[in-house]
């Protein structure tokens, strides 16, 4: 008993010391980049390659160039398991020295978003989060380049209708989505467009507990016979939907997904049966590019990567997309370094940098990543960039690019973005709006 008590006392004293001491992670001359990653839980399957990509690009810069313009990049993961509660804990834990927050889930983004104005740390949510974050006047601290979910929905519709939405009139389009803030995000736009162009819109939710058993959802699809099924799936849901689609004999060329539903690992489960499945994407893998070759020599072959080479993770869409996400972030930091003439920009300066990203074709070529990312640039009013995306198609063993860059129908999206941004600001009053910004 006594020894037990002594041990307990020592342990609790130690614990108290740990907790009450401020986390001392900041080192001089380095930039702290936390990432609220998830490599555990039901969403680990799709999260892990993205996190590996993000990590490996930062490692590459540190290994090859000794950091970014001389400043070492400290990449730190905090595990959330896609759980919003853990996400907030991680945010609180990392925010002291962070120059950016990467919340990695629409749910966590929504939690962190209202705090961004107060804590003054920019949120970078590439290709996810709240679509209305594109409105930089309202969401001064949030960025979701290069395309938002509403852009993605519009691009998919443009692609299947050959840029003539009125041809969809009388057709039925089903949205198979995760019953989670992420999956519900595109619904307002679909509803709006359905009303305007006369197609029937049918949302089919998949609960978190039903991700692996979607028999009921696919029976509904069989009964309703939609002309297209668009998937907003994540984690185990993608694999579940694709196997059920193959089983129900739903034609794969009428089945399309958002960029998070185009994971090689999910499609490999059904292989040839998935031939014809398409997924919109703002990044395209290119293992032969000079950037990827550098990563191969400096990171992967040097044994500094966590990727699973046997499974072909290096060539996968998600791994290389993770790299592109870090490219976007680093571009923002670089812009801040140059503008403010400092090696280690603070959070506010990085915010400016993210607002002034110019990733045009020339810049991508300089980085050795030509054609791997849609070219885009951000501004103070436009926090998304709206770079558009390519359509990728599964050929039975890998994803191949089957279209040129598709652009979203911005004229239909903008009023909705403005409306939702305004609603958000009103609901969270007092909410500071950046009036100086010209549209």
């Amino acid at each position, binding site marked *: 008993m006594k020894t037990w008590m002594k041990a307990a006392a020592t342990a609790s004293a130690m614990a108290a010391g740990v*907790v009450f001491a401020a986390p001392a992670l900041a080192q001089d001359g380095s930039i702290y980049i936390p990432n609220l990653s998830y*490599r555990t839980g039901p969403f680990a399957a799709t999260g892990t390659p993205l996190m590996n990509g993000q990590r490996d690009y930062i490692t590459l810069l540190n290994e090859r160039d000794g950091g970014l313009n001389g400043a070492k990049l400290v990449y730190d993961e905090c595990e959330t398991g896609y759980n919003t509660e853990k996400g907030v804990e991680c945010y609180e834990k990392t925010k002291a020295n962070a120059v950016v927050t990467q919340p990695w889930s629409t749910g966590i983004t929504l*939690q962190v978003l209202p705090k961004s104005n107060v804590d003054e740390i920019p949120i970078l949510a590439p290709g996810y989060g709240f679509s209305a974050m594109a409105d930089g006047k309202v969401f001064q601290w949030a960025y979701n380049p290069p395309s938002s979910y509403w852009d993605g929905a519009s691009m998919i519709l443009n692609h299947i209708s050959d840029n003539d939405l009125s041809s969809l009139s009388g057709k039925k389009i089903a949205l198979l989505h995760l*019953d989670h803030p992420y999956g519900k995000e595109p619904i307002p736009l679909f509803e709006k467009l359905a009303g305007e162009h006369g197609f029937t819109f049918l949302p089919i*939710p998949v609960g978190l507990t039903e991700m692996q058993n979607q028999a009921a959802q696919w029976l509904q699809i069989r009964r309703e016979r939609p002309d297209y099924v668009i998937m907003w799936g994540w984690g185990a849901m993608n694999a579940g939907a694709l196997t059920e689609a193959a089983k129900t004999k739903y034609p794969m060329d009428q089945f399309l997904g958002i960029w998070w539903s185009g994971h090689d690992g999910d499609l490999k489960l059904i292989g040839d049966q998935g031939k014809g499945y398409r997924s919109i994407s703002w990044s395209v893998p290119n293992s032969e590019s000079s950037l990827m070759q550098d990563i191969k020599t400096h990171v992967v072959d040097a044994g500094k990567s966590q990727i699973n080479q046997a499974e072909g993770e290096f060539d996968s869409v998600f791994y290389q997309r993770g790299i592109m996400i870090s490219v976007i972030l680093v571009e923002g930091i670089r812009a801040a370094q140059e503008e403010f003439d400092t090696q280690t920009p603070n959070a506010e300066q990085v915010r400016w940098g993210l607002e002034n990203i110019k990733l045009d074709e020339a810049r991508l070529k300089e980085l050795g990543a030509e054609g791997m990312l849609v070219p885009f640039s951000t501004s103070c009013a436009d926090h998304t960039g709206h770079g558009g995306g390519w359509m990728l198609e599964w050929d039975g063993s890998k994803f191949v690019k089957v279209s040129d860059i598709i652009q979203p129908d911005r004229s239909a999206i903008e009023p909705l973005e403005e409306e939702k941004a305004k609603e958000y600001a009103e609901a969270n009053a007092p909410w500071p709006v950046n009036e100086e910004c010209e549209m």
Partner: protein
Amino acid sequence: MLYRTAGQFKISYKADHALFPVRQDAYLLGFVLLLAFVVFPLTASEFTFRALLIPVLIYSLAALGLNILTGYAGQLSLGTGAFMGVGAYACYKLLTIFPEMNIVIAIAMSGFFSAAVGVLFGLPSLRIKGFYLAIATLAAQFFLVWLFQKWAWLYNYNASGAIQVPNIDMFGITVAGPRATAMTQYYFVLGVVSVITLFAINITRGRIGRMWKAVRDMDIAAELVGINLMRAKLTAFFVSSYIVGVSGALFVFLWRGAAEANLFDIPLSFRVLFIAIIGGLGSILGNYLGAILIVALPVIVSTVPATFGIPIDSAMVEHLNVMIVGALIITFLIVEPHGLARFWAVIREKLILWPFPH
């Protein structure tokens, strides 16, 4: 020595039944309150407030609610998370329909909604017992979470299906929403938790509490001695769900700032159940000890390797954390099935005797 009870004579029944028959208990509590009200706020960083102090308090409150039902009245419930959700959504609706309402009143009222739902789902307890009842409470768990998702009115037709906490002022100070400071929120939560704890201590000591304990120990026997089983069980569901509902409202409004339906899903229920069981069923103190262990320990475990500079990636930390929590639960159940509260009781006994062997 430290805990000598000699010389503290009770000369009336009233004194014998006082809240603190032993003077040192009162001193100790005073010391803990001093820590909670003065020392922690002066020393804690924002991270400590947001990741440790506030959640520990809120989880203790939720566990207290569950403990009244499971520990005092003997009705096992696995639906705590959903009842917390009822409190949170009720509070959200009250504050959006009546924006002028004081947040304290809104939180106090939201508890009644969850109490009503609790009584409704408590009705089967009159016929179903033991594990069958536990699974029946899962019906509430799954049905309510489904309802939070499907009933768009509850979240004001928000496109993402989530509820957001606006900035709420009370007497000119922002207490909830993104602009509230961690310290204000901490004091607010601490105040609510203290008041409810005092209420819980007294209700469990009194007539109603003894009625619950009789039902817990053997309900048929209790009925034979004239206890109205229906009243006893339903009051337990009512009081328990009320406290759980209030903790749910605090959970979202004073801590999380936003919530979606999945937040209230089964893992939350289990978490609260762990706290109640590891802390000790049928004890008020246990809830706090349990919450400290279950909520704070993982946070501490994940900071330890970084502090000592051990390179271990965050996913590994998380996996180890899950394993450690699992192992801890088993260990505690084996070492002391009556929970941490019993541990304290044993230590206190020893202290009273110390330094003499008997």
